[in-house]
């Protein structure tokens, strides 16, 4: 055809522009981050923590980790999957050797790649901030020669992944912002930015602050756009008049509403959807029961393969009079447990001299046990078996609860509970003939009856048992009893004055319809497993909400770690972390930053703030030191870099958890971005006036020489600390002593 012929007439040309500097720093970055990646062939620091989750991924076993959303873990697991890791490795201590079956290289590959890509990204980001290639090179070199970033990238850890996505998000957003408004391709950058934001928040919760910063920057830009009167709102007439060459493209791109909607879609909706998507993948991937099942609700557990679902499969759904049930407390603090009783009475007098009813103990017991079984009895009838057809228990019904093994009735009365004297004691009723009548009627109050149903359902219904005589509610106080109560947890009845809390709610977990009237037969029945067929499902959203809530509220006992530090120590790098020590020699890896770069970063942070204050005050007096374009560039630099440092540092000051030096690394990257750009600003604009003075060029030259000297010393310090960064070569104790630049650093010496 003619089209083909025409094609052939044209020369076939490929024009490529290659930024050799960029290529060079990228190669160096790959070399510093990826060489000898599988050394040391041992578990290094937090690999021991993330590794267990990677193993669980490989085995598709459900877990909860409150340290962050699942994307980070998934990325690490993906690396392991590529290397053919089967999850069979016990992550029990730092320094344990990996067996030959574990492909260490692939475990560490993805974080290292992310860490390496940060370097070219910083280069490109500086360009997008409208600074020169020289500045870009400076920023890249600072990042390249930062020992702490290298260490953090080279192992199975998440900081480098987080930093990578943060930088990518900012880079692609600025790329979008700087592109001419007519081009369509810029929306690809906007979408990429949104996707990166989703990833940032998906890797660590700390990423949320960087994301918010990006949103602030974007909304400032949008605010300007809204104020720009040259862009129409939505009116077509205006467009047609002002643009003779009217097209749909201009319509879609030029009007304000559409622009705003685009931004909201890409920067808000996309990240939120992605965040949910990570959880979707996480939950659909991990479908087997595992070590953290106990933290979740019964309904959630039943949706996992194995574990509770194996026990509860085939249980009857509706609780009826005569049902045999175990009642699990809805609160998983301090530990998940079941309502329990046993043939031991409360002591007549407690240690503090207070008296009790001396009736049978009722507790909450954190293990499966035959003494956890209770039978639901109709107060009006004697029988303990289920009718045919079964009569289901409904919201508002009054029942009695009979303990399966001892046949005592669940009872409460106006006697102070053993550990929480402001509440009522709960006991298995024994009639001692001391004018203490049985008060064993309980009203069933189904608190989620709107969502579920009026009928009490196994696993699904959350039930409060309201004591009819005193209107107190059966509650897990969570206080462990002393030795006389076998350290089981105290159960009390509390007047419903206090706030709503899930410690008042109980769910039926194991359930069967009782068939034996005789006590002996019933005991045998209680020992046997339950089985009848019913299937039940729980929706993704319910699982997502529950998992997310648990992740945010599960508090593990936070204690101080040997290498933990406070945020203020990070600025001056008063602290370090020993990541690994060779099992027999002095070879070791430490998280120690490059002290010179660290100082440069801090200096530039101070300098920027000082300069900004001076500029602002002088501008307010009408003295414009720099032209408006440069001022905008300066402000943008501050928003991204100083703002980025602030949002990644200040929240730690308010946090109440164990913190480590590596938490500071994202903030540090912003400082490295700032330093060369600020230097360039000083060089071109502050020293601009110098050309009218006598020492015209000397200032600029001095600055250049100074910058070179600093770069050189950065390189030298990098070289000096290399043995601690890469773990080889081994240094003598004397040499190690020489590297202890600060008294507060802990460097390890092996005693020979």
């Amino acid at each position, binding site marked *: 055809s003619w089209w083909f012929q025409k094609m052939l007439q044209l020369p076939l040309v490929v024009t490529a522009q290659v930024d050799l500097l960029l290529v060079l720093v990228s190669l160096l970055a790959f070399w510093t981050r990826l060489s000898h990646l599988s050394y040391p062939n041992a578990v290094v620091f937090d690999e021991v923590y993330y590794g267990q989750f990677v193993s669980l991924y490989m085995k598709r076993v459900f877990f909860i980790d409150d340290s962050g959303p699942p994307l980070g873990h998934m990325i690490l697991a993906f690396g392991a999957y590529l290397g053919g890791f089967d999850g069979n490795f016990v992550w029990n201590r730092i320094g344990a050797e990996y067996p030959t079956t574990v492909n260490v290289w692939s475990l560490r590959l993805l974080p290292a790649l992310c860490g390496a890509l940060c370097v070219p990204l910083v280069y490109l980001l500086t360009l997008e901030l409208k600074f020169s290639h020289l500045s870009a090179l400076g920023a890249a070199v600072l990042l390249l020669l930062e020992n702490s970033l290298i260490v953090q990238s080279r192992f199975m850890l998440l900081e480098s992944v987080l930093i990578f996505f943060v930088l990518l998000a900012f880079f692609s957003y600025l790329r979008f912002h700087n592109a001419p408004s007519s081009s369509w391709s810029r929306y690809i950058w906007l979408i990429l930015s949104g996707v990166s934001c989703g990833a940032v928040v998906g890797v660590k919760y700390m990423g949320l602050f960087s994301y918010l910063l990006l949103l602030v920057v974007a909304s400032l830009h949008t605010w300007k756009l809204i104020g720009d009167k040259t862009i129409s709102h939505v009116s077509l007439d205006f467009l047609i008049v002002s643009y003779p060459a009217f097209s749909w493209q201009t319509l879609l791109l030029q009007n304000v509403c559409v622009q705003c909607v685009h931004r909201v879609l890409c920067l808000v909706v996309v990240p939120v959807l992605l965040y949910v998507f990570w959880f979707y993948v996480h939950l659909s991937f991990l479908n087997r029961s595992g070590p953290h099942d106990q933290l979740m609700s019964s309904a959630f557990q039943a949706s996992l393969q194995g574990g509770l679902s194996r026990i509860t499969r085939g249980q009857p759904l509706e609780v009826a009079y005569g049902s045999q049930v175990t009642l699990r407390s809805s609160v998983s603090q301090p530990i998940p447990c079941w309502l329990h009783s046993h043939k031991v009475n409360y002591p007549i007098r407690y240690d503090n001299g207070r008296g009790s009813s001396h009736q049978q103990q009722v507790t909450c017991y954190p293990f499966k046990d035959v003494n956890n079984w209770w039978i639901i009895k109709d107060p009006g009838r004697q029988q303990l078996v289920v009718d045919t057809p079964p009569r289901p228990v409904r919201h508002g019904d009054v029942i009695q609860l009979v303990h399966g093994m001892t046949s005592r009735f669940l009872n409460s009365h106006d006697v102070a509970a053993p550990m929480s004297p402001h509440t009522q004691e709960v006991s298995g009723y024994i009639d001692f003939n001391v004018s203490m009548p049985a008060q064993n009627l309980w009203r069933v109050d189904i608190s989620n009856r709107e969502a579920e149903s009026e009928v009490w359902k196994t696993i699904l219904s959350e039930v409060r048992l309201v004591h009819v005589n005193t209107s107190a509610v059966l509650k897990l106080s969570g206080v462990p009893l002393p030795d006389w109560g076998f350290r089981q947890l105290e159960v009390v009845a509390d007047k419903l004055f206090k706030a709503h809390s899930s410690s008042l709610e109980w769910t039926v977990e194991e359930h069967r319809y009782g068939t034996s009237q005789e006590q002996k037969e019933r005991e045998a029945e209680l020992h046997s497993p339950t089985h009848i067929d019913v299937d039940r499902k729980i929706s993704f959203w319910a699982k997502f909400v529950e998992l997310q809530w648990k992740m945010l509220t599960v508090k593990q006992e936070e*204690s101080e770690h040997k290498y933990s530090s406070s945020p203020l120590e990070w600025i001056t790098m008063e602290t370090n972390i020993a990541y690994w020590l060779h099992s027999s020699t002095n070879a070791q890896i430490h998280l120690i930053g490059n002290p010179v770069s660290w100082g440069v970063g801090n200096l530039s942070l101070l300098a920027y703030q000082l300069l900004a204050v001076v500029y602002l005050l002088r501008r307010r*007096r009408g*003295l414009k030191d720099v032209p408006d374009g440069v001022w905008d560039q300066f402000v943008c630099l501050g928003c991204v870099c100083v703002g980025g440092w602030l949002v990644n540092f200040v929240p730690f000051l308010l946090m109440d958890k164990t913190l480590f030096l590596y938490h500071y690394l994202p903030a540090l990257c912003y400082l490295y971005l700032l330093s060369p750009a600020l230097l360039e600003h000083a060089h071109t604009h502050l020293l601009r006036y110098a050309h009218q003075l006598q020492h015209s060029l000397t200032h600029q030259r001095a600055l250049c020489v100074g910058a070179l000297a600093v770069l050189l010393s950065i390189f030298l310090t990098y070289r000096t600390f290399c043995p601690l960064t890469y773990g080889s070569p081994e240094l003598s104790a004397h040499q190690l002593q020489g590297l202890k630049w600060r008294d507060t650093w802990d460097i390890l010496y092996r005693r020979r």
Partner: protein
Amino acid sequence: PNSFQTTFTPVSKDKNSQTAGLLAGGDTQSSNGPSGQFVARGSIESPSKVLLMLVAGLSFSTRLYKLTEPPHVCWDETHFGKMGSYYINRTFFFDVHPPLGKMLIGLAGYMSGYNGTFPFIKPGDKYENQNYWGMRGFCAVLGSFLPIFAYLIVLELSNSCTAAIIAATLLIFDTGCITISQYILLDPILMFFIMAAVLSMVKFNQQRYRSFTASWWFWLVLTGINLAGALGVKFVGLFVIVLVGLNTIGDLWRLLGDMSLSLVDIAKHFLARAFALILLPLILYVTIFAVHFVVLNKSGPGDGFFSSAFQSRLIGNNLHNASMPEYLAFGSTVTIKNLRIAGGYLHSHWHLYPEGVGARQQQVTAYLHKDYNNLWVVHRQQDNNSQSGNPDLVRHGDIVRLEHKETTRNLHSHLHEAPLTKKHFQVTGYGINGTGDANDLWQMEVCGGRKGDPVKVLRSKVRFLHRATGCVLYSSGKTLPKWGWEQIEVTCSPYLKETPSSQWNIEDHINPKLPNISLSVLKPNFLEILLESHIVMFRGNSGLKPKDNEMNSKPWHWPINYQGLRFSGVNATEYRVYLLGNPVVWWINLASLGLYFTMVAVASIATQRGFSLGGGLLMLGWLLHYAPFFTMGRILYFHHYFPAMLFSSMLTGLTLDILFRSADLLLHPPYSYWFQRTGQLLLLFSILYSFYLFHPLSYGMTGPLAHEPGSAMAGLKWMDSWEF
């Protein structure tokens, strides 16, 4: 570059000054607010006076009504009443709040004839015939000023009587505000100063075109005085200082942009504000403390929190005009106090470290109170017998063994992690009757001393270096969990840097074989005392952690009036007072916050310039008094919200007024007027009616609880979480 700039300035200044001047002009116009033009100032003078009288009358009568009921100690009266008594008795005590509020309570009690003898032991104690009405009355009078101030502030900000009267009505008829004003508490005093500071700041803002006149100075200085007052009552006063600070910065920024002012003028403005808003409050604040220390000169329950030197000031303390052996000797019984401020005495007791926390040996802690378990005996390395004759003095570099007097265990350390500070080693009590092992030996060093120097009691700073591991005895300042009785952790630190945490002094020194010498301990100067008491206060504040079984109120509960506080009485038979806001008032406030946000958002997107409804200041005030609580780790109570609630109510007045008036955007004149009037009347009626319904919360109720029929409050328990 600076010197060079001068050559440029004439040109650029000339050119820019015009535009900048125009800009500044535009600024001031817009910041005057749109409402300013609607009502002429002169015309509102007379009705506003009448309304003000009305507000004052209602306010005083609602707060003073049934003031002496119930005639027993309610809630925190047990603390603040007691502290008022301490001032009357001049007994030294420790509290986490600055002294002004309690001093005023004490003064009010003194003036009204209360003699300071009532013990205020626990809530519910009957006052019998003590004169407690004076203290309550004082708080109530200050509390009565709040609606008046609110009225004036809103009037000043909006120039609309309607807005002002709405704000005042909300506060007058809020049961929460009434309850919190009627008892011996710090809150009414604090809120009085906060509101007074805001009022004088707003008045000062109005004086902006009359710089340096007498009235300008008057309001400026008054602002400063009130700031000092607010901070002097509670540290929450810091928030209003921030509010005034931000307002002042904004003001200075405006002046800086005003090209008609020379730099000298601006410097004058700056200095005037720096003097009145920083220097003056600081001086007043320090004066308050000076009075505090002068008045309280007798030893009391708070001594142990303070350093040895501080205690020597207090009459009745064993260190006051102390008399004891001057140099430490072997065989002496001593108490050892950490030099960190509020560091506590080295302490041990029979309890062991629990399983899983280092070695299962006897606990060693630091304890802030004086106690016989703080006593240690200084021994030589080996001998345990008392020598005859004059005992040897302990000198710099000597090896000592410290035996706990009560349990006869030795101070011991070993290579186990300390319970909380994992970088340090554990310190325990070890051995029986003074027989232990080599890990019981400590080398005593006098800081800055040389070998052979004796250890001076009270005056030498000493360190204890562990012989075997080379670490130094250290008090980390962290509070141990329950098993350690919430005392302070003591560790052995391998970091040998000299810090107060690793330095100790010998406080009590008993050795019958040595002559007692009267010691004139170096009296600390005032600044040292001031600093020390502040650090102790901050420690105390952050130490108020919620206990396990205690209800901790969450900040998000507060604006929705989720749960109140029981001031008095629990059961049906008792006289009950329950601190809970009038739900109608509070929910109107909550709705108005949302309304205000929407109005600002709509207005500013429409105009895309800093369009202000005049309530920005109040909004900021609300935020500043509310948001910080979300970051606080200490225990929080419902009543912490009240300062924020004042701002919220004022904002409501403003917002609703604008809402009513904007009716003419939608309706034609006669209808819009009717709409406006109906809205106002409806609002007034609902506030009054809800006050009628809920007034027993403040003025007390007896009889059955609300969930039972026959109660006065039957059917009014709108939320399950309310406890009346």
